[in-house]
Structure formats: C-alpha cells, structure tokens
C-alpha cells in the first residue's frame, strides 16, 4: 500500500528559496542548494522546485540551480517554471529532475501536456494549477477558477474541468495550489482538493495553507489527496514554530495516516 507523501515545494528566485503570502511579499530563506540539502537530510519524501519568476520574466528556467539542487536530492525531484517546450523539458530532465511541473504554460498551450506524455511518459508530467474560490456560475460550476502567472491573471476556466482535461491529455499527477490559502497557515482548501481528487484517477497533491501537522492530517482524512505540500511548516520565518519531518510524521501516525516512517541514523 502506498504511503501518503509529504512534499517540500521551493519557490526559487535568483537562486534563493523564497516564501510568499498569497503569492506576494516574498521573504528569502537560503540558497536553493542549502535548503534542498537540509530538507533531504530531514527525510522529506519528495521535493518540487519552482523557478517562480521564469514564466513572468519570459526567460528559461535557471538550469544551473536545478543541477546544483539535484546533486543533493535522492528522493523524487520535480522542476517547474518557464517550461514551454519539449526541449525545455529535456533540459530539465538532463539536469537531474525526474518530473516536470507545468502550470501557466499548459493553460496557454494544453497540447504541451500531451507532447510531454508522449515523449517522457505520464509519470513525468505534473499539471500544477492555481485555483481561487469564486462564485459558482454556468461556466465555473465548481466555484473554483484557474489563474496563471503567479495568480496575476484569471482565465475563466473551471478548476475541476481543467484537472480532468489535464488527466485526459496525459498528466500523471495534479497539484492543486490554493491562491486563497497560500502562505496563510490556516489549513488546505479541503473543498477543491476533495473535488479534484475524486474527479481524477491520477494522484492529487494538496498545496497551500499548511501551518501545522493537524492541517496535513485533515487533508489526508477528508480528501483523497495522495500527497501534500508542507513548505511553510518546515522553514517559513512567518511561522512561530517550524516542524521537523520527524515531528510531522510522528503526529500523522497518531492520526493513523500511513506515511514512510522517519528513521534515525539513516543519513548517507
């Protein structure tokens, strides 16, 4: 039986891991390389790296930093930001990532999902989406709309429909980032995570809002999410208390959530 996965998601800008609140007011934490090394050694299950400015600045992803991080990460490593072509994907995979995250670029050109799946396999393509709660309308029946470019532009697309279409096009995982919850530390958006995790057959990753282990326990018990992003809890200076993976996993076990156990003396 698969364990629930805990994923650290780094927003990287100018080689630094940075932490936002509702996609704004970023604070720098440390270099991506240093954060990656520490979090890997703390036994994180997986790492995602977003070059957050690449798409908005219309430049290629910072491959040099991707390579540096990959040398310290011996758990699954996903990279996203500014990936708009098969060549971009190949570059990132060659740099040591095994999954590609596409977000705004996939909204602009959905065929990139299919092309990526054909070239590298479904398991390689993570469709990441920025969702915001809106009024339910005929066009947006779920009441969640897709935004792009760091929540700057709204697309008029329904989040659940987009997730289903993404799966049909070839996405192997769907990462649901709540714009309303991002950096708030008040818990995940349970409603949209639940809707999407029931609508698709591929794994769903819950993202945005985690501030304590109880939030993670809640998203795993009240939705069918396979994984959850826990970045702030690990290193955000905005939180009074940061947690180690050991603390988080031990707490989740108390809620009978099946996770990869934290084991002491296991660093190589």
């Amino acid at each position, binding site marked *: *039986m*698969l*364990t629930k*996965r805990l994923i650290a998601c780094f927003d990287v800008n100018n080689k630094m891991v940075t932490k936002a609140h509702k996609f704004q007011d970023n604070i720098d934490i440390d270099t991506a390389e240093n954060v990656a090394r520490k979090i*890997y050694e703390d*036994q994180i*299950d997986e790492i995602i790296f977003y070059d957050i400015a690449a798409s908005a600045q219309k430049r290629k992803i910072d491959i040099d930093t991707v390579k540096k991080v*990959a*040398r310290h990460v*011996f*758990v*699954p*490593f996903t990279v996203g930001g500014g990936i708009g072509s098969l060549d971009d994907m190949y570059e990132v*995979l*060659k*740099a*040591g990532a*095994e999954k590609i995250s596409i977000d705004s670029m996939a909204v602009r050109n959905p065929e990139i999902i299919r092309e990526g799946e054909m*070239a*590298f*396999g*479904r*398991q*390689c393509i993570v469709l990441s989406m920025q969702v915001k709660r809106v009024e339910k309308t005929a066009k947006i029946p779920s009441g969640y709309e897709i935004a792009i470019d760091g929540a700057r532009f709204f697309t008029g697309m329904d989040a659940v429909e987009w997730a289903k279409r993404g799966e049909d096009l070839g996405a*192997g*995982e769907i990462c649901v980032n709540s714009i309303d919850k991002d950096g708030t530390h008040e818990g995940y958006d349970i409603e949209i995570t639940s809707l999407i995790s029931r609508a698709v*057959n*591929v*794994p769903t990753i819950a993202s945005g809002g985690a501030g304590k282990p109880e939030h993670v326990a809640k998203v795993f018990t009240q939705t069918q999410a*396979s*994984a959850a992003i826990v970045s702030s809890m690990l290193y955000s200076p905005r939180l009074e208390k940061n947690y180690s993976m050991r603390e988080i996993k031990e707490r989740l076990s108390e809620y009978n959530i099946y996770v*990869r*156990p934290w084991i002491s003396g*296991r*660093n*190589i």
Partner: protein
Amino acid sequence: MIGVIDYRAGNAPSVLNALERIGVPSLLVSSKDEIDEVHGIILPGVGSALGTMESLEEMGCLDVISKKVLQDGVPFLGICIGLQVLFEHSEEGDTKCLGWIPGVVKKFSQDMVRVPQIGWNEAEFTREHPILSGLGKREFFYFVNSYYVIPKDENMVLAKTEYGVEFCSMITHKNIFAAQFHTEKSGAVGLKLLKNFAMIAGDAVCLRKD
C-alpha cells in the same frame, strides 16, 4: 567503474548523482567501446517498455551488453523499466523484450488502484542476500509504475510489494539484479542498495563524509 547506460528517456543523470554521492566511480555509457571499460552495468529507466527497447536498439549496444552480462557475468542492475525489459514480453505496447528472465510484464488493474502507482511503498524481502546488506527485512522505496513483472521462476523473486495485487518488486538471478523501485530516488535506503551493488561489482567504495 560502474557504467550507466545512457539512452533517450532514461534518467541516467539521477543515477550518476546518486553514485557520486556514495563515492562510486561511474561512467555514462552511450557506445559499445565504453562498455568494455566497466565492471558493473546499471540500466536505469523511466518511460515505456516499447520506447526503451527501441532506444536500446538504436544505440546498437544490445549485443555487447547481453554478452557482458550473460556470458562474462558482469554484475547488472536494472531499475524500473530496466527491470521490465529483462522479461520476455510486456503488455505495454505488446512489446517483445530482452528475454533474459523468463516471465511477462502485466498492467495493474485500474479497477483496483490508481494507475500509475506513484509513491513510497514497502518491499518485503524474501531472503537474505549481500545486495541487501544493512537493510531491514522490509523497507520503503519510491515506485513509479503502471506495469509489474511476473517471473516464471519463484526463486528469482527477491522482494514483494502490495499494490492492489502482491507483485514482485525485485529479482535476482546469478549476476543479474533488478528492482521495480527507483533505488536512486529512495533516500538513504536506496543509496545503500546501490552501494551494495557497487561492492558486488568489486568497486572501491568510500562513503562521502559531509
């Protein structure tokens, strides 16, 4: 020197990074001549069985690799698709595979579980073996697969894992080892297994100290 086979859609860079981390000298192998220089071969893999077989054939190295492994007894480690292509046939794309290991490759039932399987799952080892030195009887590894192998010979099964069905997650046969899970992406336990393979291949291994 461990040779890591480089082919289109393989994840050789991750395996090289892992070997570097545990202090094992390695070489990215993309041509026949380079295979002569190595005394252990790793066939990494992501993607499809058909795509992998086509890429391997395009490389033109299959006869040399087969000779090295099957006749000269060079230690071999297959990872993920690198396990599946060792079998006779895969349901994926109705693909004829290498046939080094008797048996077939089947798809998980979508009625039972989410496919692909993506995540950490537990492997239970069926017996002791030097490649498992320092590992527990059960360990968690990272899996990404829609298909699983069914070896004809139960004696070749070194680990079993549960995902809707109980499937074979690692095999061993003479100098051949292969795992369904990504040992290069399974944290300290995975690195230990890679290190054990390098030891079997006779490579000097020094643990990197941070």
